[in-house]
């Protein structure tokens, strides 16, 4: 099999995720949207990719472009997969919209030898300042919805996330604090207090301990 011509450049944060994926590996992208990441991984890295997408329109768009995608969601549909079947289980900007993030996180590192997770950081200084000065739910670049119509039902800070990984026995192989454009913040480790204060998003490469 051969991967044809190069694709359009990826969104910066998706490119960072793609960079973490070893060529030729098997990937499940949960919440794959229109399939940009999967398409890139197949064409540029010969990845055997699968996707789960909650919107039927997204699924049909993915399948129409030749990707293997099913309709489903992270909360209910990960249980089907056998342990360790994927090299990477990717959950990009979706964890905060799941009903049971703790369970989803455990499932990700069960079915994937690695998990790649990104989410908006509720500990960012702009969020903190907004709440402090206005006393209202913050609406920022990374958190662009008003409280009454947001799909984000389990927001967390990078600090919260790091702590939960510890509780679940999940090893953080790599952590990145990203700016609003999805670029890594230079000179900041992905898991410390500075990441929690200055990162608009957190991006993590995870695996199960032991």
């Amino acid at each position: 099999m051969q991967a044809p011509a190069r694709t359009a450049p990826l969104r910066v944060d998706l490119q960072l995720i793609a960079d973490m994926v070893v060529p030729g590996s098997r990937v499940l992208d949960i919440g794959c949207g229109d399939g940009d990441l999967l398409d890139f991984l197949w064409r540029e890295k010969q990845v055997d990719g699968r996707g789960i997408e909650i919107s039927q329109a997204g699924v049909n768009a993915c399948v129409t472009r030749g990707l293997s995608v099913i309709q489903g969601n992270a909360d209910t549909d990960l249980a089907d997969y056998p342990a360790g079947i994927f090299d990477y289980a990717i959950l990009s900007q979706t964890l905060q919209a799941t009903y049971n993030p703790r369970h989803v996180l455990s499932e990700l590192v069960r079915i994937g030898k690695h998990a790649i997770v990104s989410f908006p950081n509720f500990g960012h200084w702009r969020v903190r300042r907004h709440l402090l000065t206005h006393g209202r739910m913050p609406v920022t670049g990374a958190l662009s919805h008003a409280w009454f119509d947001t799909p984000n039902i389990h927001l967390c800070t990078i600090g919260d996330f790091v702590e939960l990984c510890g509780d679940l026995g999940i090893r953080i192989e790599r952590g990145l604090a990203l700016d609003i454009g999805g670029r890594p913040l230079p000179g900041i480790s992905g898991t410390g207090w500075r990441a929690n204060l200055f990162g608009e998003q957190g991006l993590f490469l995870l695996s199960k301990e032991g």
Partner: protein
Amino acid sequence: MANATNAETSPDTLAGPVSAEGRALPGHSFVIGPDAPLKLECGVDLAPVTIAYQTYGTLNADRSNAVLVCHALTGDQFCAEPHPVTGKEGWWTSMIGPGKPLDPARHFIICSNVLGGCMGSTGPASIDPSTGKAYGLTLPVITVGDMVRAQARLIDHLGIDTLFCVIGGSMGAMQVLEWASSYSERVFCAIPIAGAARHSAQNIAFHEVGRQAIIADPDWRGGDYASHQVKPVRGLAVARMAAHITYLSEPALHRKFGRNLQDRQAITYGFDADFQVESYLRYQGSSFVDRFDANSYLYLTRAMDYFDLAYEHGGVLGNAFKNTKTRFCIVSFTSDWLFPTAESRAVVHALNAVAANVSFCEIESDKGHDAFLLDEPEMFAVLGGFLKGCAEHRGLATGEPA
């Protein structure tokens, strides 16, 4: 791998197929001879077995572009050309043709009349060579597995090792799943549409109504109507009418007919076809009997009833697809209550459990089960994209400029 000079090819192959009515049909036929009979699931070795088939397009040099189209209960091999008996256009011309998802310019498309059918393949109306009479009910009961094994023999005969795609809706979807389970290494991609891995109790119940309508017709004569030169046309028509309702959705029926009256201004206080929907169903029933054999209807509905892929694999559907490398695209329709989306989703879950490569699309349509036969642009877009993706993975021409 067998080829066209295989010993299975008897001299009869040279003659074209013949319908249950004894009418010569266009296309090809292949005969499984008594030297290597077809082993049926019921335990009988059946021979000779004739499989009538039709092809469109050309097999490429490395024999990698073959597509097997599996027809539904009342379909046949004439999927992409006018029907020789009814004169109506092929049942899947929406899917097969130049620029369509299945394109004879790129694909070698094979469609065979199923074992047990009545359009040239061996079925209950065929002559039993041991008696010189039509089999009738003496033909052993056929299963979906038997249909697929017969198709596999045809594919051997055509010299094809791996099919690029096996595709079909409804009973055709059952054959697709059976192919993917029994011959996974011979199926590059599988597209079961509006199907299920088993026939539900409700589906069996509807089929039983149809069968009882046929059996209750005095002209059925215990299945031996051929000897009496009659046909249980009323029973078969009622069976078709009942089944036809299950193929449509309530909104589709309502949109088409509502409570409109047929050629009259007011109800007649009688049992004539006052309503358009009654007239439509009567027409569906009466036109069906011209092209279908009543005993075939019994055999094929039974084959569907018996289909239960999980049961055949220790009660775990995933076991039917263990280690499969086939790429699947499962398609269902929102308004299909005969083979509802939940049945397709069960197949998807089973495929996930064995880490198979699977896509699943539920198409928004109010046309009911029949939607797979109709003009559904979203289905064509999805299947066109899926097939193109599979062609890329298989190194086939995709029909697009490089």
